[in-house]
Every structure is written in C-alpha cells, then in structure tokens.
C-alpha cells in the first residue's frame, strides 16, 4: 500500500478509536457512579465542536509559542503513529516522542500566562520526574528481548510467548504510566479539576481542537504500545478488544479512586517504579 | 621508543589506590554535605567533591586523561562562580526587603606588598601566560590581571571596561571556533588553526578570569 495512504489511514483510525475509547471511559465511569453519562460519541463530538467555535487568544500569552505548541502536540503524536503501527521502528523513538509530549504539556500550561496553566506546568514538571524512572521499563524489555525495534519484539513474542507473563512487573509499571495519562486518574495531577482544566484552561477554539485530537491519538498509541509490547502479535480485532478492556479497567480505577496530592502522586509512582525495577531484575536473574 | 605501546606498570599499580582515594574523598565530602545545614558551607564542601573528581580522572594517567582534567577544572571553577553569585543575590534579596541600603565595609589594609608587588607580579604572570598560551596560559594571565585589579583598590577601573572585556572574550571565542573548523576544513593550514585556537582561548580565558577582579573591585570602590 502507498505509504502516505497508510499513514493517513492509521492516523485517522488512531484519532477515531482514541476518541471513542475516551467516550467509553466516561460512560463506564458514569455508570459506576450511578449516572447515565454522556453518549460514547461525546468526546469525538466535543473535539469536532471546537473546530466550529471562535478562536480567541489571551492577551497575556507568549505569542507564537502559544499557537505553535498546540500544533506541535499534534505533529509529535502523528509521528508516533508513523513510528509505531506504520513503520514498527524503535521503541526508544516512541519514548522520545513521549518525552516531547511531556514538554508540550508543560509549556501549553505556562505559555498562556494563566495561573492555573502555570500550576499545571509546575505539576507537569513534577510528574515528568515521576514518569521518567518508568522508562526503566524499556531497559527491562531490552534485557529480555535484546532489541528495541518493535517488529523484532513482536517476532520475539511470536516465538517465546507474550512478555506479559515473563516480565509482569514491567507491564505493571507501564500500566501505571498509561493510567497517569487518563483523565480523572489518581495520577492525572496536570489536569486535576482543582486547577480548572490544567494546561488546557486557556486554549480555546481551534487550538483546543488540536489538543484534543492529539490526546485521543496519544491514548490510542499508549494502548497500542502496551498491547504490542506485552501481548505479542495481535490481530486488529485483538487490538480492539484489548484496548476496550484496558480502557474499561482504567475507567473503573479512575471512578473509584480520588486524585492524589502532587507529591504523593509522584512518590507513589516512583515507589512503584522502584519496586518494579528491582523486582524485574530479580525475576530476570532467577 | 619514546612512547610506549602500553601503559607503564607503575601507573597500573597505582590506579586502584588512586580510585580508592578518590572514592574516600568523595564520600567524605558528600557525607559532609548531607549532614551540613549551612548553605555556604555546602558550597565550600562541593570543592572537595570536585577534588575527588579530579583524582578519578587523573588516575588514568594518559595524555588523554590530562586533556580531560582541564575541562573538569573549568567546570568546577565556572560553577562555583555562578552559584556563589546566586547565593549572594538570594541573600541580598532576602534581607533587603526593608529597603535599607548596605554599605560595604572599606578595606583597612595598608600592607607594603599591596603597593609595590602587584604590578611586577602581574606583568610576570601575564607575560608567562602569553608564552604558554592556551587554556593554562589564559588562567595564569587572568590570575595576573585579577591580582592587579584586586590590589589597586583606589584606582578602580571604569565599569565600561566590563562590557569591553566581555566583548573581547566573545570575539576570541569565535577565533577559537574558526581555528577548530580550520583543522577539519583545511588540514594543510593546521598551523594557522593552532595559532587561532591557542590565542583565541588565551584571550578568552584571561579576560574572563580578569573579570572576576572587577566583580570584587566594587567593594573597594565604595570607600
């Protein structure tokens, strides 16, 4: 198939499915909390809605940056789709993209000049400090499979069985990473409702639309990586089912837990990462 | 054979000792820092940590190791300078909220050596530094300039010199970059590249170190 077409196809799939999963998540959370909840399509409609709304820019914003940052977020996640499902390139590259995502998250908050965005920005730095140790997951995967290239990891799993069963602690750490990206999660300190909408507070109209598109793609990509890396070669139906299952689990956790105080959120993550790393290394040595 | 193929045995036998000494020193310094409450003391103790780092590098005892010591030294010097300045600025900010103006104490020193020696020592050091050239020469010549400024308390240099010196060092840095590129772009002109690099960095470092003297000078000017 034509490469450009393939990319386009995968990006659109990522966007649509990511939005639907977010919608599903809200629905599940609502049902757990005994509310009817919005339709599953709601998150997608929200995203599209912002494209027909008027865009306005705060007077206090850091100008070219404030606009550019929203589109950069989009660009980096599109490139994640290219590296991931399309090219099956290096896992390290995807994590570089994830690091850039943290940076954009941070700066989207601070470039507007709003105090809420600023708080979100400080928290983004906090939380980045917590999520970085989780990159140790990469090292554990590398120790196990001796490669960083996604297609090789898939081949390894096809031969030796899914990694989920051989390095479960790494999978757990990665799951915490995914959890921290979900809205309303105990670790989502950058988007906590105590700071309105976090870094998105001052982005309206078109820019907000960009942000929401990228978030949907990001969610899809994180789930995709988790399924690919830990569950081995899957059919498209398998991906679909896996993503729905993980989204529902995440929704269940989010619905039943409160948000943690920023310091505690970080240290919980770090402690888990520490246990995960040490435990995995012990498991590998056995 | 002037240069051996392998590292001499003496050096190999000394290496573990050097590393142990480095570890012990680093340990002492770091433990000292971790139980130290006073911020200024911590700053001084980081000097010890830097010493430990230098031992680590020196122990390898090749020409390469020596070439690596120099950056290490520079980093230490540069960071101590920047951080001590930040500490000062923090404390001034913290204490100056009431708006009272602090008058620095005048230096009551009236030593003979401060009147006669500086010019001579400074000239010797600068001449020697120019002869050495390169980073070492820069530090030595800069030390000479610094000492001169420090000692000539009454005849302070005008503040405009600050910008001028800073500009000179920027230009010198560009010389150095040009020299560096010349090595790879035009290998036959290596001698020109060498001279550009050696004297560019000499001027750069000397002016930078000399500038420290101007930072200290303001204390004396207020007499």
């Amino acid at each position, binding site marked *: 198939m034509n490469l450009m077409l393939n990319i386009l196809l995968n990006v659109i799939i990522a966007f649509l499915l990511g939005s639907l999963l977010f919608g599903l998540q809200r629905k599940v959370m609502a049902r757990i909390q005994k509310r009817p909840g919005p339709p599953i399509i709601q998150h997608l409609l929200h995203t599209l809605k912002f494209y027909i709304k008027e865009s306005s820019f705060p007077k206090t914003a850091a100008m070219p940056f404030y606009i550019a940052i929203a589109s950069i977020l989009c660009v980096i996640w599109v490139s994640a789709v290219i590296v991931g499902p399309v090219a099956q390139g290096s896992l390290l590259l995807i994590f570089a993209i994830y690091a850039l995502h943290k940076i954009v998250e941070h700066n989207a908050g601070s470039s507007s000049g709003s105090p809420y965005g600023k708080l979100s920005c400080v928290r983004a730095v906090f939380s980045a400090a917590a999520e970085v140790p989780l990159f140790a997951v990469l090292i554990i995967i590398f120790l196990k499979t001796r490669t960083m290239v996604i297609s090789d990891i898939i081949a390894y799993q096809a031969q030796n069985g899914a990694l989920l069963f051989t390095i479960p602690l790494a999978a757990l750490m990665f799951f915490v990473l995914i959890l921290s990206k979900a809205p309303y999660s105990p670790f989502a300190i950058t988007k906590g409702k105590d700071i309105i909408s976090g870094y998105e507070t001052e982005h309206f109209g078109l820019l907000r639309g960009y942000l929401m598109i990228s978030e949907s793609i990001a969610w899809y990509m994180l789930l995709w990586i988790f399924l690919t890396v830990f569950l081995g070669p899957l059919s498209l139906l398998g991906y679909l089912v896996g993503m729905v299952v993980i989204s529902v689990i995440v929704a269940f956790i989010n619905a039943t837990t409160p948000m943690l105080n920023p310091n505690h959120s970080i240290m919980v993550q770090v402690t888990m990462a520490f246990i995960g790393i040490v435990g995995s290394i012990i498991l590998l040595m056995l | 054979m002037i240069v051996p193929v392998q590292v001499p045995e*003496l*050096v190999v036998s*000394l290496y573990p*000792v*050097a590393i142990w*000494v480095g570890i*012990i*020193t680093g340990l*002492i*310094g770091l*433990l*000292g820092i971790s139980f130290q409450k*006073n*911020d*200024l*003391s911590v*700053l*001084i*103790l980081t*000097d*010890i940590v830097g*010493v430990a780092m*230098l*031992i680590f590098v*020196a*122990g390898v005892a090749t020409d390469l*190791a*020596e070439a690596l*010591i*120099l950056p290490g*030294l*520079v980093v*230490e*010097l540069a960071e*101590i*300078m920047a951080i*001590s300045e930040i*500490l*000062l600025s923090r*404390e*001034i900010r*913290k*204490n100056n909220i009431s708006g009272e103006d*602090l008058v*620095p*104490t005048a230096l009551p020193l009236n030593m003979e050596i401060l009147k006669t020696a500086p010019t001579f020592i400074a000239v010797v050091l600068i001449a020697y530094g120019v002869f*050495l050239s390169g*980073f*070492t020469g820069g*530090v*030595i010549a*800069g*030390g000479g300039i*610094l000492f001169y400024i*420090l000692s000539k308390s009454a005849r302070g240099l005008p503040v405009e010199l600050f910008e001028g010196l800073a500009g000179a060092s920027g230009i010198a840095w560009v010389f150095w970059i040009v020299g560096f590129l010349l090595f790879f772009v035009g290998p036959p002109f290596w001698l020109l590249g060498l001279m550009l690099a050696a004297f560019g960095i000499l001027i750069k470092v000397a002016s930078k*170190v000399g500038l*420290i003297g101007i*930072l*200290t000078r303001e*204390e004396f000017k207020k007499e």
Partner: protein
Amino acid sequence: MLDVQIWFYTGCVLVILGSIATVVGPGVKDPLVRTLNTEIPAVGVSLIFLTYNHTLALLTFIAATAVITLILLRAIVRLEELGVDL
C-alpha cells in the same frame, strides 16, 4: 621510582586528611577556616598530578585554585557583611 611513590602517597594522605579536616575539623563552623582547610586537599591533588606528570594540568590547577579561593572568600566576606544567618 621511590620518589614517585612518596609524592603519590603524601598526596593521598593530604587529600584524605585534608578533606576530613574540612568536613569535621576544629573550628570549621567559621567558613573562613573551612576554606583554608580546602587548600590542603588542593595541594594533595597537585601532588597526585605531579606523580603522573600532568604538569600542564598542575599549572592550571594552581592558578584555578587561587581563583576559586578568591571567589569563595568574596562570597564569605559579602555574606558576613550582610550579617545573614544561613
């Protein structure tokens, strides 16, 4: 060869004892004394450089130590002037 060993081990002794003195030595509550004590490890390191014939590094180190001392003393004096309690 014995000379080399003597320099090296004297350097080691100076470095270790000097850094202990800097951390817990008598009177180190006074930052001035602490800075003075840091001169001992500096000389010790110089001896180690000498052992390995890093003479150029040694030359630079001697000059740089003087500059570092100056910077530290400047900070100490200014802080003393401000009368701050760190």
